[in-house]
């Protein structure tokens, strides 16, 4: 257990935790785009910048990305100093030039008083901010179906060779985690399309409702030993089945007692 001071308030934290997690637990709003608890922090969006200092630093201070900075005893953190706000403003201004259509960036920029970017908008602007959240979550799943390809300003997130990714199981984790909702996918007529690859969705045997893809179910069966019959019905039908089972027990018990 370590003690750190956040905006003058002394708080407890567990060793090894990152600053951003501790700050957010205190209910302090520090913006971040690439941060997600399920994946390793990489500090790509730079928005979670905070100011840190220590008593023995004799007035020296540092600006660090809080998602990447492990807590240490005696740290003094300020989350909203004028300098930090200025840094975040600049980053948001640049992000807005790169992805002018991204709603989340527009909203964040408005909070910081930026309504229009002061830089030239990138000619082939898209909403991808290269935060790598999608590739990191795919790695957590152990698939790594997508990655960054090309170099410099031509860098994009794509499956190998721009073809249908062989390792993709259509779980939608990458599309769900994407902060700017840039990964296109569709669920139509019991088929899911993502990264141009088509998947069969498992339809409920009773009502036909679809939840996950067959490939993802097979992956869960193999890696997490979930029995295959669990995927036959949708959640609603499984609940009705449980009710009938429990009702059957009640009726049987009544017959015994009577």
């Amino acid at each position, binding site marked *: 257990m370590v003690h750190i001071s956040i905006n003058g308030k002394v708080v407890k934290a567990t060793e090894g935790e990152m600053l951003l997690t501790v700050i957010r637990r205190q209910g302090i709003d520090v913006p971040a785009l690439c941060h*997600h*608890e*399920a994946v390793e922090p990489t500090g790509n969006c730079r928005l979670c910048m905070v100011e840190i200092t220590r008593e023995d630093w004799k007035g020296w201070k540092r600006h660090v990305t809080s998602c990447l900075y492990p807590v240490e005893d005696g740290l003094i953190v300020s989350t909203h100093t004028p300098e930090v706000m200025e840094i975040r403003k600049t980053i948001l201004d640049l992000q807005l030039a790169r992805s002018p259509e991204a709603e989340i960036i527009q909203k964040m920029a408005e909070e910081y008083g930026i309504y229009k970017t002061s830089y030239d908008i990138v000619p082939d602007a898209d909403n991808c901010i290269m935060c790598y959240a999608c590739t990191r*979550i795919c790695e*957590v*799943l*152990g698939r790594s179906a997508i990655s960054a390809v090309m170099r410099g300003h031509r860098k994009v997130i794509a499956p190998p060779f721009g073809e249908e990714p062989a390792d993709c199981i259509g*779980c*939608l*984790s990458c599309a*769900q*985690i994407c902060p700017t909702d840039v990964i296109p996918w569709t669920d139509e007529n019991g088929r899911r399309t993502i990264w141009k690859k088509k998947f069969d969705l*498992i339809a409920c045997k009773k009502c036909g409702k679809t*939840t*996950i893809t067959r490939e*993802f*179910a097979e992956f*869960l069966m193999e890696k*997490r*030993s*979930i*029995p295959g019959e*669990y*995927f036959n*019905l*949708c*959640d*609603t*039908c*499984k*609940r*009705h*089945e*449980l*009710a*009938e089972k*429990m*009702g*059957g027990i*009640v*009726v049987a018990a*009544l017959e015994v007692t009577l």
Partner: protein
Amino acid sequence: MNYRFKVEPSLCTGCRTCELACAFSHSKNQKPGLSRIYPLAHAKEKYVPVTCLQCDDPACVKSCFFDALRRNEETGAVELNLERCVKCMACVASCPFGCALFDDVHDEVVKCDLCKGDPACAHFCPTKALKYVRIL
């Protein structure tokens, strides 16, 4: 973990007060959440409230690759950490009883968390068909 739901199906009238209590106690942004408990008919006019059974070896926890579902040792409930959830629906599809659900309104996965050890549904049941009692 000595507390369990005690269901008396013969007393359940299917009034759905537990559903309301659940939805409103899990409100978010001034909107009621999706209920985690459902009184479902198993025969004509015979109901049984169905909710998460908090299994000993839960399929939802096994299916989660992101460690978002974890058992709270104090209450015995398997709780979902929304910060770690990426909505891949593995738990929704894997639960053999269909008790992990997807809430379209709030765009999140929900499951019974036993209201931190004091379930609202049991408090509100007018016929006391649903009780949260200490077991031996």
